[in-house]
């Protein structure tokens, strides 16, 4: 018997209509745990580097984390992996909600989809019974609308549905997969689902999921709940409210948006409005938010409430989380009411809330600059809110100018030409980023932006404070109960860090310290993504309940495989290295490891090169950013080493 996981994969071939239940190899669990780790291994083994994102050979994998469906609080992530049509590298996207545990209860750890269906279909998984069914009646319907229709048709109110909207069907490069309370939005995975002709996956599971050492496992869970209570009663002092507690950023609860609206950029990541937040705005936005927010809601088995049900009068109800309430608002220089209205339509269409608003702001900038003209926007209303709705409607249908814009800012700029490339100034590896433009280079963030292969800062950062507290005393106080650090040196790094002077950015944290800090932060994210844990209870917030010291016990008690801190660290390193190798095999190199040119005003090329060198060295990569043969062998990735060598990826004498 397998513990913690079910031990079965569901293999679906949409070209042939094949459905297979396949036992998985427990050795894979020991090496890669599950979730992102195992997804990456499967992609490495089965998707050669020539594979086009939109092709029958590309796989679309819905992987549950190793601990999803166990009683571990907040462990509910589905990691969706494929090749991104936008970056053409491995797409990283993930969703909370209720889908992953349901799949586990149905008896599967992951669904691996290949091929392409000629007709639009959906997949219905009801324990052992799996069917590919006609979805032609759902064509063009919204993602949430479709999910409701399917639950009704199947008479399964408790089924969980992951579905795409029109954006996915029309292969918009930033189409999302929606799941009611949550969505997997980054990297255009919804477009791959649409390309495969798959409208939705509906799951209902009513089977037991076992853990190996029950009493021990329950004690660990109880400890986490107790700590969550403690942290809720004792928010971190001296940081903005958004960083004080646990969970994803508490955007649905909090009305005070001073931090986001005055530090992040408006428009096409262009304008900072330092004086934006006033008392009148706060009152108005409070009224807006409280009027539309029906209830704060959680994901599966989690006491936090990071999402909300939103009912804007006159519009269908939808659910929202995190930062998307502001992305449209700020890209359009509009207000919160507009943000809630357009997010409703965007959710039904199924588009990424980071990329879509930026693409639209980019299009309007091109119009203003005369690179695009009124003829490109026939019938577009004059007001900016109307323009955003108009653009969104065209993008998801790939109509007129919407067709180029549906490829995202990077590719659209190149299709449009005439200097449009200069307006694509906020992408990394062709992928739209949070709208931030800052002054002084921060070495830790430099490394995370440059090297992070999830290409999304929120999925790499966390744990280590973004800024030092003003006084040494305050910093010493902060580190007192900092039990989450893997090593005491991190406390010293933090205590020594000053807001100004010699011991401040960009030269402090030093190159070595910066590399260590990034290594810790990203490693914890890799662990979370393998276990299916919400980053909001682990790698993202300050002082989280899950950390490197209690995770090995969780994994051991759940699976019965003995894991210690070193084994866990090594597993995360293995996955991180494998993803790098996968992307290297698809052509990624050191020159791609860079933030947007204007992310910081003050740049330090020599220091940046040292940082990158230091990071590569720590990670076991060579100076081109390629994992060395030695490090691949040390991680047991011998087949990867051999493959890279055979393909001539190492330049002469440079393995």
């Amino acid at each position: 018997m397998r513990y913690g996981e079910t031990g079965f994969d569901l293999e679906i071939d949409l070209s042939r209509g094949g459905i297979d239940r396949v036992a998985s190899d427990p050795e894979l669990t020991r090496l890669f745990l599950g979730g992102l780790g195992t997804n990456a291994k499967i992609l490495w083994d089965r998707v050669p580097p020539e594979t086009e994102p939109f092709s029958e050979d590309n796989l679309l994998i819905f992987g549950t984390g190793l601990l999803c469906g166990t009683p571990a609080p907040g462990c509910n992530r589905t990691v969706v992996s494929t090749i991104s049509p936008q970056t053409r590298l491995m797409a990283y996207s993930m969703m909370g909600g209720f889908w992953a545990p349901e799949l586990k209860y149905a008896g599967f750890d992951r669904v691996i989809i290949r091929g392409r269906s000629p007709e639009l279909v959906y997949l219905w998984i009801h324990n052992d019974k799996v069917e590919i069914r006609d979805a032609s009646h759902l064509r063009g319907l919204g993602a949430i609308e479709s999910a409701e229709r399917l639950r009704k048709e199947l008479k399964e109110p408790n089924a969980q549905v992951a579905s795409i909207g029109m954006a996915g069907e029309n292969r918009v490069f930033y189409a999302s997969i929606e799941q009611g309370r949550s969505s997997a939005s980054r990297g255009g995975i919804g477009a791959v689902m649409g390309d495969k002709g798959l409208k939705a996956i509906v799951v209902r599971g009513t089977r037991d999921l076992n853990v190996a050492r029950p009493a021990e496992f329950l004690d660990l869970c109880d400890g986490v709940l107790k700590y969550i209570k403690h942290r809720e009663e004792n928010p971190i002092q001296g940081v903005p409210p958004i960083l004080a507690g646990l969970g994803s950023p508490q955007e649905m609860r909090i009305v005070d948006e001073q931090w986001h609206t005055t530090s992040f950029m408006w428009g096409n990541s262009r304008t900072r409005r330092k004086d934006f937040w006033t008392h009148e705005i706060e009152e108005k936005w409070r009224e807006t938010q409280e009027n539309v927010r029906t209830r704060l809601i959680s994901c599966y088995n989690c006491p936090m409430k990071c999402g909300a049900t939103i009912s804007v009068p006159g519009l269908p109800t939808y659910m929202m989380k995190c930062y998307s309430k502001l992305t449209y608002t700020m890209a359009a220089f509009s207000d919160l009411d507009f943000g809630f209205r357009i997010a409703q339509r965007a959710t039904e269409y199924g588009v990424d809330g980071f990329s879509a608003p930026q693409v639209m702001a980019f299009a309007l900038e091109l119009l203003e600059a005369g690179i695009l003209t009124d003829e490109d926007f026939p019938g577009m209303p004059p007001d900016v809110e109307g323009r955003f709705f108009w653009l969104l409607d065209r993008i998801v249908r790939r109509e007129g100018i919407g067709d180029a814009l549906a490829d995202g800012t990077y590719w659209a700029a190149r299709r449009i030409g005439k200097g449009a490339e200069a307006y694509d100034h906020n992408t990394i590896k062709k992928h739209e980023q949070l709208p931030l433009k800052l002054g002084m280079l921060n070495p830790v963030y430099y490394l995370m932006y440059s090297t992070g292969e999830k290409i999304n800062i929120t999925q790499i950062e966390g744990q280590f404070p973004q800024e030092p507290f003003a006084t040494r005393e305050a910093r010493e106080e902060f580190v007192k109960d900092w039990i989450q650090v893997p090593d005491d040196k991190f406390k010293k790094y933090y205590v020594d860090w000053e807001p100004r002077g010699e011991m401040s950015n960009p030269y402090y944290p030093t190159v070595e310290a910066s590399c260590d800090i990034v290594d810790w932060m990203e490693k914890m994210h890799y662990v979370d993504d393998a276990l299916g844990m919400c980053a909001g209870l682990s790698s993202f917030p300050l002082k989280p309940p899950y950390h490197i010291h209690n995770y090995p016990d969780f994994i051991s008690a759940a699976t019965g495989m003995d894991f210690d801190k070193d084994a866990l660290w090594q597993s995360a390193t293995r996955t991180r290295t494998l993803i790098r190798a996968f992307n290297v095999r698809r052509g990624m190199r050191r020159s791609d490891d860079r933030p947007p040119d204007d992310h910081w005003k003050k740049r330090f090329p020599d220091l940046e090169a040292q940082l990158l060198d230091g990071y590569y060295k720590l990670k076991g990569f060579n100076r081109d950013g390629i994992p060395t043969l030695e490090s691949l062998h040390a991680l047991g990735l011998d087949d990867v080493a051999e493959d890279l060598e055979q393909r001539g990826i190492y330049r002469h004498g440079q393995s």
Partner: protein
Amino acid sequence: MAKARKIVKSVTIVADKCNGCRACEVICSAFHAAPRYSSNNPARSRIRIVREPLRDIYLPVYAGEYTQSECTGRDKYIIDGKEYSECDFCRASCPSRDLFKEPDSGLPLKCDMCEDTPPLAKPKCVEWCLNDALIYEEREEEVDVEEVRLGDVEIGIESLIDKYGLQQVLDTVARRVKP
């Protein structure tokens, strides 16, 4: 009827505070697994959340008595503008629905307030609901002496007898008992 002092256990369900997380379902099913906590399966839970986010319906309901036949009427309630079926509030393991039945055998489930020796300070679902949607109280009351309390197996057998008749159940049991 004879009177006796008795601890009455009750849970106040503050549905307004429920965030729909289903932690109560997870821990209830884990607590009742054998061996304890060795597995979990919300479909076996003795508390269930009637959850329809788009209509803002969040209703924790505890499993009560098994019933042999479904109600004839199906009334509707409208509370705060939201429509509920009367079944949404009903605790019964009833032939009209899957709720409160073992998913494999179909045998009825009933909340036993996590009876345990030694007794727990509070039921597991209450302990795991950090949102205070489930509030536990104990009070002493004078009550009529109760009829014999049925265990899980007895409740199951009773439902089988209701469904198939005593003779068929006896015959089946006899067949199963190897000589």
